[in-house]
């Protein structure tokens, strides 16, 4: 067993896990943070997306030991007792999620994207979400939610483009 200490959502946590434990398994089974989901367990679906030192990763592809000492953000850490996180709020308002299983991963990818502070186009948003598979929504309302949240958080606008223009 290895002792792994990580900072999760601002709080230092330690768990004793076998070396072959993934960060995902440690979060879900040892820290009881079940927001990140097991959708494929091989890095295809993105349902387990969490932020490690601010970047989006598939927690199923990172060994817990590799996360030692790092800052982990999960879906459970977004909202506070004071604030409903604007991404979560926007997703609720446009009904971005249907079955919801992809939701936590989708939202964490969105957070990583918006946190970068870059100006975003719709194409860049699609690109940033292409590692998060969703079967219910056709991504349409999810992208709508991301745009709303981005505009709310940054005060900037995502430019309108007509894909049909040759």
């Amino acid at each position: 067993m290895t002792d792994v200490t990580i900072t999760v959502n601002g709080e230092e946590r330690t768990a004793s896990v076998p070396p072959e434990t993934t960060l995902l398994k440690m979060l879900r089974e040892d820290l009881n943070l079940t927001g990140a989901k097991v959708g494929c367990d091989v890095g295809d679906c993105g349902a387990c997306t969490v932020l490690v030192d601010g970047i989006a990763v598939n927690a199923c592809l990172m060994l817990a030991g590799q996360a030692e000492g790092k800052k982990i953000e999960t879906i459970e850490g977004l909202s506070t007792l004071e604030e409903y996180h604007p991404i979560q709020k926007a997703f609720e308002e446009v009904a971005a999620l249907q079955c919801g299983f992809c939701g936590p991963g989708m939202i964490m990818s969105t957070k990583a994207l918006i946190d970068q502070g870059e100006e975003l186009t719709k194409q860049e948003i699609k690109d940033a979400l292409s590692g998060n598979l969703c079967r219910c929504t056709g991504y349409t309302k999810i992208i709508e939610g991301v745009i709303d949240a981005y505009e709310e958080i940054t005060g900037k606008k995502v430019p309108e483009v007509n894909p049909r223009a040759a």
Partner: protein
Amino acid sequence: MKPFDFVQPTTTDAALAALAEHSPNVRILCGGTDYVVELKHVAQSPGVVVDVSRLEDLKGIELTDAGLRIGAGVTHSQIMADKMIAEHAPAMIDAAHTVGAVQTRNLGTLGGNLVTCVPSMDSGPTLLALDAQVTILGPKGTRQIDLAEFFVGVRKTALEPDELLLEVIIPSENLGKPAGFIKFGLRKGQALALVNAASAFRIEDGTFKDVRIALGAVAPVVMRAVKAEAVLEGQAFSQELISEAATVAVSEAKPIDDFRASKEYRNSLIEVGTRRTLEAALQLANG
């Protein structure tokens, strides 16, 4: 996953020591986007897994006398965001962008992509087209070889079990060399390559010079289409010649027939990919 031991050295010396100590029951882990997947499916424990993701020597992108040095542990996302790469080898950014999705690019490393050495790797063709070299660190010190020699076979490289890939170097004379990269996959996002192609050349006095055409996913390892290069080398540039080179490239490749695509279809893509990357490079050459 089958149980294994995990070591996480913080210096290259410690990493080499760990490799030496546990060889041959030892494997190197860096980004894990490929190897952790493999670990989940293997029937036998690898024994010891050495995580090299914390080695400072594997990090960083910098200009040296030799050229542009990219640490083996640099992630695809870091490549995409790097200003020096954007300036000196922009085709690498196009290639990095086609690797998996954001999450894969954030974890996956350039070195890992090369070491895994699957035919469909996305980093290989551009680097081959730019005559990249790799530095290998072992118990006896470092050695430098051409990337072309590094690729030995499917999932087989020139790395010895006790060695470590340290860095990739794009020689200084090739910085800014016009190059194009294209990837054909089965969908727009998160696709494995059916065919990858990269081309690079200079135009001097209206003729093609130092032509490089590299193809991925069309042979056991990423390969150069040397006959196709020869079609162009030293010739005055013309569209017909580019098309001819693309046709010749097809004859050099040995793509497989599998469930993703037939050999015939891959051949069509090799032709189109070679032509389009040559055209892209030409556009850059013409400014």
